[in-house]
């Protein structure tokens, strides 16, 4: 499948957004400008954007604690996301979700989950809506290699399969769950688990190539939209940073050589070279793009910094649609 040049550039734009947004966020955490912690998608941009851009605008998506990339990849505006990370009133969740619980319903982002695995059933339900109401929307559930051992994934895969739901289960295999190497706690390969649930299971070994990921997920999305049911796509990738920003583990659970070899396969840089090589864009265009995104991120930070914190009563809002009792 050949993609239009503007689509290719948009891929690079979104990968850059994730990269620069997360680099900025990382700094802010370390400076105490973002409370709690954040989990960056740095190194995994190809996997995130390749998947998100295989979806249509109206399609649904859920994610996890490694959360910023997903809504950004799906097209969410950066300002309200950054404001959310800072706990501001203008945050996409009014400052009540924070980094781990971003959601932007406007772009089909139905929510990231701090509970590993827990959003997979939600995505499955969105696919059920699509099927029952006949809206043609596809749903995509992002989850990590760690989440691949939560039972609810298999309940969801089974249900989606027997009901023929339009959903893609997307395993972001960055080879570690916190300090735990996937192979030490995961029997076999995640993608091989699809067969037993009667759906295609694909393993994308080169998860650093946005086009390879896009291609595989596109096939799964097309299949879903055509009414042929769910697929499982496992993408092998690597996170460049620590599990979460600020975390320091004395244990060298990922050795230096491994890390170095992966750092060489930087998805953003690789795709940049590709765009140049293929003549999709020249140096000036790409530099312009990079400037634009850098400015976008700075604008997001300014938007956030200038925003107020929520009023105390907001802590009592939206427990129910119509308040009662203490939520009044």
């Amino acid at each position, binding site marked *: 499948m050949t993609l239009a040049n503007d689509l290719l550039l948009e891929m690079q734009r979104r990968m850059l957004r994730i990269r620069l947004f997360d680099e900025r966020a990382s700094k802010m955490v370390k400076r105490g400008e973002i409370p709690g912690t954040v989990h960056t998608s740095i190194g995994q941009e190809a996997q995130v954007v390749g998947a998100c851009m295989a979806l249509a605008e109206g399609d649904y998506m859920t994610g996890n604690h490694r959360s910023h990339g997903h809504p950004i990849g799906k097209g969410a505006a950066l300002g309200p996301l950054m404001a959310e990370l800072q706990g501001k009133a203008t*945050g996409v969740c009014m400052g009540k979700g924070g980094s781990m619980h971003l*959601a932007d319903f406007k772009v089909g982002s139905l929510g990231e989950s701090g509970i590993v695995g827990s959003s997979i059933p*939600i995505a*499955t339900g969105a696919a059920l809506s699509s099927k*029952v109401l006949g809206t043609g929307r596809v749903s995509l559930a992002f989850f990590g290699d760690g989440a691949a051992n939560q039972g609810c994934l298999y*309940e969801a895969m089974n*249900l989606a399969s027997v009901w023929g739901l339009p959903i893609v289960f997307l395993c972001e295999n960055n080879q570690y769950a916190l300090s735990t190497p996937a192979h030490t706690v995961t029997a076999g390969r995640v993608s091989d688990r699809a067969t037993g649930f009667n759906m295609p299971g694909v393993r994308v070994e080169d998860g650093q190539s946005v086009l390879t990921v896009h291609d595989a997920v596109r096939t799964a999305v097309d299949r879903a939209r055509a009414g042929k049911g769910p697929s499982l796509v496992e993408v092998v990738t690597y996170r460049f940073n620590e599990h979460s920003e600020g975390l320091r583990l004395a244990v060298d659970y990922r050795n230096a050589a491994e890390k170095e070899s992966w750092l060489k396969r930087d998805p953003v840089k690789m795709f940049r070279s590709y765009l140049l090589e293929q003549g999709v864009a020249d140096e000036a265009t790409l530099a312009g793009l990079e400037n634009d995104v850098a400015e976008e991120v700075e604008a997001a930070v300014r938007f956030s910094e200038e925003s107020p914190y929520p009023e105390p009563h907001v802590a009592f809002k*939206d427990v129910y649609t119509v308040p009662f009792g203490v*939520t009044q």
Partner: protein
Amino acid sequence: MTVTSYLGAIGAAQREAMEADPRVIIFGEDVEANVYGTMGGKSRADKGDFLQMFGPNRIRNTPISEEVMVGAAAGAAMTGLRPIVDLSYSTFLYMAMDQFVNQVAKSRYMFGGQASLPVVFRSAMFYGLSTAAHHSDRPYPMFMNVPGLKIMVPSTPTDAKGLLRTAVDMDDPVMSFEACLLWGMKEDVQDGEFRIPFGVARTVREGKDCTIVAISTGVPAAMQAAQKLEAEGISVEIIDPRTLVPFDSQAVLNSVGRTGRLVIADPANKTCGAAAEISAIVAEEAFDCLKAPIMRVTTPDTHVPFSPAIEKQLYPNAEKIADAVRKAMAAKTRS
């Protein structure tokens, strides 16, 4: 008005809700065959059969996968459907606890109001029927401890029908705890669609000496107790909160304001149960009216044993409730 059973009322509410709104769907284990009879007619052959009436797109048998059932209902509710999930026995809810607490209850809040979750989770408590510990729990108190969930505990056919319809029409997640022991209870029920608001208690019986707040099967038991006590010259007021979240504390406070005494009849386990909450509300907000200790009549903190020789003794019954009222009456009144 038609004489209708509790079970029939539940079926009728669901049928009318499905007729009124194509976004309402029902799914659960064995719902196509209507094994428990909670969906209208007695069987698939009946003309009231839901599968025949609404088709397989809206009436769906699920695998035995409670976790994804509950989560999928939440996801579907966020995206345009209004699911009713039939979870059959209340003891199976634990299987989906993460989805209830972390997704169903929190999503609207955590996402700053972006999500609405119009979804109803029905389950029946099968206590008192020799089904032992794995099928007999009355777990509504633990869900009361979770903000974001609404909870109904109907004790009559009318309440079951009216509350369930309100639940389906509401944009918040509702858990309906039905009592299997009440399935056969019959009364005249208003024909056609009607709704009973959440958070409005029903005064089952007026009285002046002691208030009994009674929940689910505690209500008929309290009625029997009241009759016995009347013969003894004790006049009892019975309040059925009908919904535990929201809870009509004003109705209870008003009643205790008049009677000065409170007994709570709650079939849940004692510790941190609904009775504890109601007692605490009153001890905090109506202390000055109280003439006697607040008495809880609950199931003690044991599991439910199988043997019928030892099961029934555990639940609140007329005798235990009457005893508690007598004790409250005997307490020396504050001067």
